[in-house]
């Protein structure tokens, strides 16, 4: 008998006579409605010591440029709106063609991506690696990650985040959930930001429904 069949037989034997328990009804209560979802998102992302800025749709380009004044090489996903990185002063901007090796990616200072979902209560950004976010390595290897999240992409808590992510999973795409910069607490439980992932996470939250007055 193959190991597979053997294991399945053992499981069936172990469960003989056991109650087959049905999947539970989802009755764990609705999460508390948030009075201001964007404000909670900002507060919770800042809690992880990430930088968050709120901008108008027209202000993205300037905000990206202001964030990356010290970057000399910036990589972007192929589907990122090019005007977002149009004002970078003196930095070389490379759109990923899928051929950059890990070593080559290591020679970029920063990456700019969009996002799929933002979760307010946990301060989490989820990438579903669509064309404006690119493959996973892009937002991993460079040390600075500038992530543009639209207010319309925000949900209250984790349960509401699954539905908007499902199509990507069904299409076989990976997900990356990001809550602040890379961190460790392995040494005496003292939190240190920045181990292997980007040490700086800079979030630009773009107003959609209520454009902010110009600064």
């Amino acid at each position, binding site marked *: 008998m*193959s*190991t597979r069949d*053997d*294991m*399945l037989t*053992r*499981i069936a*034997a*172990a*469960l003989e006579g056991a*109650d*087959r*328990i*049905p*999947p*539970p009804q989802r*009755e*764990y*209560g609705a*999460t*508390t409605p948030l009075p201001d979802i964007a404000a909670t998102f900002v507060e919770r992302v800042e809690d992880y010591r990430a930088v968050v800025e709120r901008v108008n749709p027209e202000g993205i380009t300037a905000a990206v440029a202001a964030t990356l004044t010290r970057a000399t090489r910036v990589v972007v996903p192929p589907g990122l709106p090019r005007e977002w990185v149009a004002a970078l002063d003196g930095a070389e901007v490379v759109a990923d063609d*899928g051929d950059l090796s*890990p*070593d080559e990616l*290591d020679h970029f200072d920063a990456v700019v991506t969009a996002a799929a979902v933002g979760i307010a209560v*946990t*301060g989490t950004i989820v990438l579903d*690696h669509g064309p404006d976010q690119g*493959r*996973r*390595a892009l937002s*991993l*290897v460079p040390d600075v990650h500038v992530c543009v999240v639209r207010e319309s992409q925000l949900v209250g808590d*984790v349960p509401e*985040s*699954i539905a908007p992510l*499902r199509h990507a*999973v*069904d299409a*076989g*795409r*990976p997900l*990356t*959930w*990001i*809550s*602040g*910069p*890379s*961190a*460790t607490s*392995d*040494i*005496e*439980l003292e939190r*240190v930001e*920045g*181990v*292997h*992932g980007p040490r700086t996470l800079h979030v630009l939250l773009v107003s959609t429904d209520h454009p902010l007055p110009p600064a």
Partner: protein
Amino acid sequence: MSGTFIGMPKFQTAAKEALGNSQQRRNLQHATGTIRRKRAGVVDELNNWDELRQAGAAIKDNVLSHLDTYLVQLEESLTQAGATVHWAADAEEANRIVTSLVRATGAEEVVKVKSMATQEIGLNEALEVAGINAWETDLAELIVQLGHDKPSHILVPAIHRNRAEIREIFLREMGQVGTPPPTGLTSNPRELAEAARVHLREKFLRAKVAISGANFAIAETGTLVVVESEGNGRMCLTLPETLISVVGIEKVLPTLEDLEVFMQLLPRSSTGERMNPYTSTWTGITPGDGPQDVHVVLLDNGRTDALADQVGRQALRCIRCSACLNVCPVYQRVGGHAYGSVYPGPIGAILNPQLRGTTSDVDQSLPYASSLCGACGDVCPVNIEIPELLVHLRTRVVDEHRGGIPSGEQIAMKGAAWMFSDHRRWEKAQKGAELSGRALGKKDTIGRLPGPLSAWSDARDAPTPPAESFRSWWKREKGDPR
């Protein structure tokens, strides 16, 4: 090589030694106290925590009671997504499968994401025998590996080490296996983490093969999930060409929606954060993104034995959050090594004897490694009734050593559930045991006992009841037991 740390004495012996190590105890007290406070804070933020715990337990019970069906579904989804599925009955088979997969790539080294399953099966040691270097990439695991040490906590395996010890290990060992730390390295955690970043980046960038576990495996879609903090997981899951994941068969979840429960329960229980820094999900192969050669090894290694025990099976709900370790007064005093397994603390005390059976000294003694104070069951995010299971396993250890004759201890154990349900009753009973401990004088173990207990005491030397119970010791030292 699997399971028990080689030559591990029974818990009480190892615990005695550990109790002599005051540096370790200070490190542990500090660390567990910090996580405990953080956990309590973020759990209090949710008004539906108990309902979430019940949902978590119910989802796991549904999975376990249909495990065969869900595993076949998982296999189908994974295969459809381009992954290759392997089945491993035990540690040896799993190690053999992984070793031959690595060999087939021609690689002589692998990078590893922290994974309890691969520790459980002793994969690193098996790879070493095959001439393959396995590099642990989680900072704490790196500290343990470089220190030729054993993990002592599920979440923070180097919790028993302080910064000065870590600095020493880095200075002594790092240069021998790759990029050395900078000269003038201090014991500042920031500098130590930076040294690990530089040391490991070289390995990430050149690695051809990665090995991981998985926190969850979604049957419906074939999606694997890894929850982490540092980004070492993302590096391993993304950059190499080949990815091999060793996944315990109890890790299955039916649907993507189930993540909404566990992604609330796990980070809050584990690190005491609203969310861990990084969670990665992948579904087989994604063209143009990440490893294009993806393998999943489904691991039994005693899990079907645990499943067959109607009471014990709930231990398979465990999501390895380690909350029960951090609240356990016994764990906090003796540390993780005394449990003789990669699963220490209360979960170790109930899981190890079920996964490995109760033939060894250490596995027979583990169900006794508890004061039954109940704190572990209270924090468990999937509602595992750990104290009840400990009592259940004590009965089993006793039963297996008496060969069918009703024993005094068995009868006593039947009454134990009643006794432990009220701590005053328990304290009174322990007082009785203390008294008998004194009456037995200085002998370390009880030899042959008369009457109905003889069948049991003939089979093993039972430790004498302590002269002072843990609870009354705790009360005397610390005031209130919690």
